[in-house]
């Protein structure tokens, strides 16, 4: 929420005279079907406005795709009597289930660290909304970032945004098969001199469709019948197989 407000503020606060950002996405709805193995969306856009005014300073585009908020529990194991045991834990809520960032250059070259922190941009600036922990949660947050990056749910790709011409840019966003369903937000930022000049946010929906959707609904709306269906399937298949494979005698 805090992040959305920040974005809204940016949009309002952008000076009207400066360059404006226009962007779009190749798909605003990703449907998960039985053969879904992940997909690829394209975020594209153009920088409109006065090009000549201050063309001497470099301008940069950052594309961020954020998944729905989720709760992450991080546990730390310690050795107790020779055995590794989960001892301390931290619950980080409000971390995105998916985070993708692409930029024209490495973030550190685009804006100073405190500016990035201020705009909430970059993996290192992902902060939970609330923390449940008896300890300093920073190592736990770092562990979450590390694990999710390994699972390719968190990605930061410097150079992932390419300018096709003076004004046109494009970025490929890989959406892995393991993504959570829900509303995603595609945010595009235009930086100049380490300051956001313009920003735009577009929602992206990821949802199941067809048979998958019906099975999911069935499991959640009629769990008892669903359970019976699974049991019946198992029983019948077991029975049929024993009929098919009669003893070779």
């Amino acid at each position, binding site marked *: 929420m805090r992040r959305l407000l920040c974005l809204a503020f940016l949009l309002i606060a952008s000076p009207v005279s400066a360059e404006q950002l226009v962007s779009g996405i190749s798909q605003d709805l990703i449907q998960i079907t039985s053969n879904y193995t992940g997909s690829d969306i394209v975020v594209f856009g153009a920088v409109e406005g006065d090009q000549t005014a201050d063309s001497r300073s470099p301008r940069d585009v950052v594309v961020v795709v954020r998944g729905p908020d989720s709760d992450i529990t991080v546990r730390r194991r310690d050795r107790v009597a020779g*055995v*590794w045991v989960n001892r301390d834990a931290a619950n980080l809520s409000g971390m995105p289930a998916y985070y993708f960032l692409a930029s024209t250059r490495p973030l550190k070259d685009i804006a100073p660290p405190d500016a990035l922190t201020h705009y909430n941009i970059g993996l290192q600036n992902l902060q939970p909304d609330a923390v449940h922990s008896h300890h300093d949660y920073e190592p736990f947050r770092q562990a979450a970032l590390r694990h999710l990056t390994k699972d390719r749910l968190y990605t930061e790709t410097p150079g992932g945004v390419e300018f096709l011409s003076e004004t046109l840019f494009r970025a490929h966003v890989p959406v892995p*098969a393991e993504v959570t369903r829900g509303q995603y937000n595609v945010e595009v930022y235009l930086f100049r001199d380490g300051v956001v000049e313009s920003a735009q946010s577009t929602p992206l929906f990821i949802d199941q469709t067809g048979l998958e959707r019906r099975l999911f609904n069935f499991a959640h709306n009629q769990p008892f019948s669903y359970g019976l269906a699974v049991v019946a*399937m198992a*029983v019948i298949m077991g029975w049929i197989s024993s009929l098919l494979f009669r003893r070779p005698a």
Partner: protein
Amino acid sequence: MEIYLPIAEMSVQWIVILSMGLGVGFLSGLFGVGGGFLLTPLLVFYGIPSGVAVATTLSHITASSISGAVAQWKKRAIDFKMAGVMMLGGLAGTGAGVWLFAIMRRAGQMDLVVSLTYVPMLGIVGGIMLNESVKTLRAQARGNAPARIHPTNHVWIHGLPLKARFRQSRLYISIIPPLVIGFLVGVMSAIMGVGGGFIIVPAMIYLLRMPTNVVIGTSLVQIIGVAVVTTMLQATSNYAVDIVLAAILVVGGVIGAQFGVRAGAKLRGEQIRLLLALLVLGVALRLLWGLVITPSDVYSIAGL
């Protein structure tokens, strides 16, 4: 070829899942164990969320156990009375297990409790079976008569009240030990997604002194009962049963189980016990290894 699992919310290579079902089904037909203690870790290792793996493995157990049970039933190798008594204990155990499951998961000690109970249990069971089957095989190799198991080793079991006659098993014993064994296995079934055959089978042989030929069929019937109830509980309380995953596992499982039963018919009881002992010990060692080696990352994440 990949297929999307609607409840696990991920894509899997269905051929890999099918192979897991086949392999574990084969072992389940061979040994009369459900194979959950192998399949659940395999699925988790593949990347299926552990809640879904635990809940869905039970369908595979149901199907391959039914397939095996029908084959045993034709051989009249099932003691339904014994299976019924154990199932009663099992249902109570399942209820307790679901309750424990919630507590342990909240505390984040799920894996630890599972490993700490598994290692000594599997270690002892596997060790006893290995020792006994090797002795029997050696005695046979020397041409001696197989060593007889003397029921007098377990006098205390015969001192318990509530005795009943189990005709198929040629036993006249108290119903308390089968009830307790059933209960313990029910708890494990809910917590770990295992049918518990690898505990029931040795318990029937070494504690209850049931004849090996009825042990497999009887344990399968007990496992089916517990697995069906646990599937229903998991479907209604946790929404964790994935029907697509279940279907793939079941197809592999039933086919594998048929070949397993056939392979088992070619082996002698003590040979089967030797192989099962090695398998059980292998799993125990694997779990022990996981407890004592230094993890590559001491942090782990859950609940995404």
